[in-house]
């Protein structure tokens, strides 16, 4: 009997082993291919982040150059013009017109300084984020009717300049939004440094808006400012939580590692 069954007894296990080997190979091969695909995706994502980072850095560099040119060249020339106007007014009989021109020049010089400061705040580079935000608070015109309350647990703390600049831009954008649209009377900014990270909270008591609806319209160029903020924070590997609803004001919470 065993003689008849010899082919069955020999070939069946061989075929079974072969079948199991094929299945194991397919599992292994597919897993490797998926891992490879995942690796490519991670590389592509890193490349995109690098590109975005480089674009933002270039943008900041360009802002810095324009701010420097405005401050050093245009500002200096305007000061010179003001001096000349002063001398001309002193010699002229029509002092009233001279005074008007001087006042106009003062306004232009103030505007240039303001624009230059907005483009690249010197305080941020020299004194750090807490003091730059303090300066931002002071720069809010009293005519806007908005009061900003700024608190920080360590005003002398310095962190990586890139993080400082990104966070400053975020607060700048949020403040612009509040002043333009929120009809708020009070803004609260709280900066909290811990050993490993930084928590920044921004609130206003304005009219708020439907954030979820805005997110749906991002493709139609609405809410791009907020999306840019989110992108900037993501580049720092931070967390950006934003909340707003009609008649509920606006709240943004940012958390970034500073290690």
């Amino acid at each position, binding site marked *: 009997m065993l003689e008849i*069954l010899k082919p*069955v007894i020999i*070939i069946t296990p061989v075929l079974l082993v072969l079948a199991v080997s094929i*299945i194991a190979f397919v599992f292994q091969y597919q897993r490797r291919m998926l891992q490879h695909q995942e690796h490519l995706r991670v590389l592509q994502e890193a490349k995109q982040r690098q590109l975005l980072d480089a674009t933002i850095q270039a943008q900041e560099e360009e802002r810095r150059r324009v701010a420097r040119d405005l401050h050093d060249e245009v500002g200096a020339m305007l000061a010179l013009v003001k001096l000349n106007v002063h001398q001309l007014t002193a010699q002229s009989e029509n002092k009233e017109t001279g005074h008007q021109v001087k006042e106009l020049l003062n306004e232009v010089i103030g505007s240039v300084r303001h624009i230059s400061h907005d483009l690249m705040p010197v305080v941020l580079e020299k004194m750090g984020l807490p003091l730059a935000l303090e300066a931002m608070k002071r720069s809010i015109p009293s005519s806007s009717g908005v009061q900003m309350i700024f608190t920080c647990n360590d005003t002398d703390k310095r962190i990586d300049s890139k993080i400082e600049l990104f966070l400053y831009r975020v607060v700048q954008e949020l403040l612009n939004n509040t002043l333009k649209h929120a009809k708020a009377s009070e803004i609260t900014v709280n900066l909290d440094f811990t050993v490993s990270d930084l928590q920044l909270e921004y609130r206003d008591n304005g009219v708020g808006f439907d954030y979820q609806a805005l997110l749906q319209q991002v493709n139609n160029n609405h809410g791009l400012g907020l999306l840019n903020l989110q992108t900037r924070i993501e580049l720092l590997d931070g967390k950006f939580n934003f909340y707003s609803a009609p008649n509920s004001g606006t709240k943004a919470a940012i958390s970034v590692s500073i290690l």
Partner: protein
Amino acid sequence: MEFFLRKVYPWLVEMGTLWVLVPFIAGLFFIRKPHKSIQFWLLLLLVLVSVLAEGVGQLVVYLGAKNNIWVVHVHTLLEFLILAAIFYTSFQRALFRKGIILAAILFISVSLIDAFLLEGITQMNSLTKVSGNAMLILMGILYFYKVANDLTVTYLDHDPVFLLSCSLLILKAGTTMSYAMFNQALAASYDAARICIAITLVLNILYYTALILILKRATSC
């Protein structure tokens, strides 16, 4: 061997015959679940055909017929066609689909020739079984090729057709030699034929168990 044939084999036959009901009951249970794919219905049809084949086989013996192997001929043909249909619905490439249609036509021809001209309807359809198994193994490997290249399936154990291909590969690779040698073994002795049947029964029990999982996966894919 004597112990196996006298004590284990009858128990194995009973279990092998009844075990087909397990995936059938599971399939009936899964009918209530939402998101059933076309593969689910085809798989359930496959199980139903197997249940009917077992039932008719038993009934024919009960009615006093000496030979019920014609049921195996019919079952083999229907089983192949349903499995081919499952693979047909799984492939998108026209070449593979045409190949499956061609294989089905070829298999029907082989099956009819084997039943009426070669081995006969009262003999085990070894030629049909071996050729059908070879074609099904090929289809399973083609499906492996598809999943390995398309990378649309992240978890292979969630894909019912992949699981079916694995089960078929093991079942067909394990039973092909038993079917090929069955008629010769039967001519030599009943015990040799029983060994062949025992091999197919063990693998069938494993296959029907795997079908429960495959049916479950076919309801959620």
